[in-house]
């Protein structure tokens, strides 16, 4: 298990952690108290994964460039 708080995990971290939690629980040799804690952690990880997946939002912008070629900001892109 990593020390990173679940709320700060990347999707990939949370995903790997969730997989390992599920595997351990399914293996069935965890003490009851531990298995409850593990279950709660798994639930938190699943929520984190879902949250990251819900962030699926499309935002497309084009960088606008100044005369010197340095970026000045963004503009909506109409790619057609």
């Amino acid at each position, binding site marked *: 298990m990593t020390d990173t708080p679940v709320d700060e995990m*990347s*999707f*990939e971290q949370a*995903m790997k952690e*969730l*997989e390992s*939690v*599920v595997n351990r*629980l*399914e293996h*069935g040799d*965890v003490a*009851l108290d531990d*298995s*409850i804690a593990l*279950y709660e952690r*798994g*639930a938190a990880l*699943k929520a984190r*994964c*879902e949250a*990251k*997946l819900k962030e*699926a*939002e*499309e*935002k*497309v*912008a*084009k*960088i606008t*460039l100044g005369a010197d*070629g*340095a*970026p000045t*900001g*963004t503009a909506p*892109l109409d*790619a*057609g």
Partner: protein
Amino acid sequence: MDLFEEPNDNAHEFSVSEISGAIKRTLEGEFGNVRVKGEVGRVVIARTGHMYFDLKDDRSVIASVSWKGQVSKLSHMPEEGMEVVATGRLTTFGPQSKYQLNVEDIRPAGAGALMAMLEKRKAALAAEGLFATERKRPLPYLPEVIGVVTSPTGAVIRDILHRLRDRFPRKVLVWPVAVQGKDCAPQVAHAIEGFNQMTPGGALPRPDVIIVARGGGSIEDLWGFNEEIVVRAAAASQIPLISAVGHETDTTLIDYASDMRAPTPTAAAELAVPVRLELLNWVENQGMRLTRSGTQAVTLRQQRLSDLSRAMPKATELLEGPSQRLDILSDKLDNALRDFTRQKRLKLTEASGHLRPSVLTNRIAEQNRRLDDRSARLAPALARGTRQHRRDFTALTSRIRPAALKEKTALLSERLVPLARRLTDHANRDLADRKAKLTALDRLRLTLGYESTLQRGYAVIRDGDKVITTTKEAKSASALEIQFADGRITLDDTPKAAPKAKKPKPPEQGSLF
């Protein structure tokens, strides 16, 4: 006839500059825009930024020049040995009677030449380690922001955006660049560097992955992605970079420097993000497994608990045996007590039968008898003891003998006599020594005193107690007394001037004269 008459000729006479100018005009007029194919010879870039090089074939050489401003616009830089087609105009350099080709653009002559050059460049960059596998960075699993370097218009960006939307809609930042022509390479390199310069959380979100994409085209169209600055920028990128230039069969040098090569722009989008629906399914599945295994952890234990409790005997069963034993025992208890009392009473009766006063009086009489007997033996025993002690005392006193003491005294007296003698002897000897030393010292004293000088004929003259040492004193003296060795005489006042009077002598010092 004029000796200096010119030959009979109508030809115009030029000055050098005139003819030089005329040649210039002619050349520039005639060859104002030419394409020349040849091999590049030595290339020199002067400090001024102008580039001088030769174009040659097997028989001729033509000096070529590109001015500083033109050099930056060349679509290809000439390299020695390269077959090129140079476009430009002929011009002359009057001061040195030279003509040269002012080159405005250079293109490799034919695909073969281009490929040869590409191979050479690839080998050089590979030797620098720019394509090394260990430089490659892994692509992020799920990037938040995707930077796309491509043309803002056209199918490529559309394909990428469509595919991203299908798989996993993300934030996309498009950095518009020219994807062909001479502006392509510097703009692409600049875009890669620009994305890298963005700070995470800055005004513009820094991409987690960069896609450099371009649709298919001829080798010349794709050439910008072979340029060294693009390759270097891609290799230096801290952000993982996917290259997707041309079709699957087209390979440009950026593909070697990128962290991942995608065969098409659409494939690049697929490499960049996972499929959201699949992930949702996966998470759902994990959630189900989690719940199932969580529930199972409890149900399995419940099952086990009930199994175990079923195996446990009932509380009433546990008590049946003991309570029966209790019944039996409590039945026995009453009888047991009665029997016990009966037995004890029997014993008491037996014992009390023997309990009579005669038993006690007999014992007292017996004790009295023993007392009388002991007191009778007491007085004789004391007398006997005293007698014994007196005998012992007499025996001890008889063993004290004075003879032993006397012997010891005699022995010590004997040892005392010689010691006393040695003490006396020693004292006598010491006394005699001291006497002898005293006599000797006295003798010494006498020899050192003035009296001894008197023996040798000197005399001491005195007036009373005062010693006279001068005639003046003698004349003023009231009476003179002379001491000789054998005694003293006193002279009267009258024979004062007796010339025979010995010169008075100082008692001590006089002995020297």
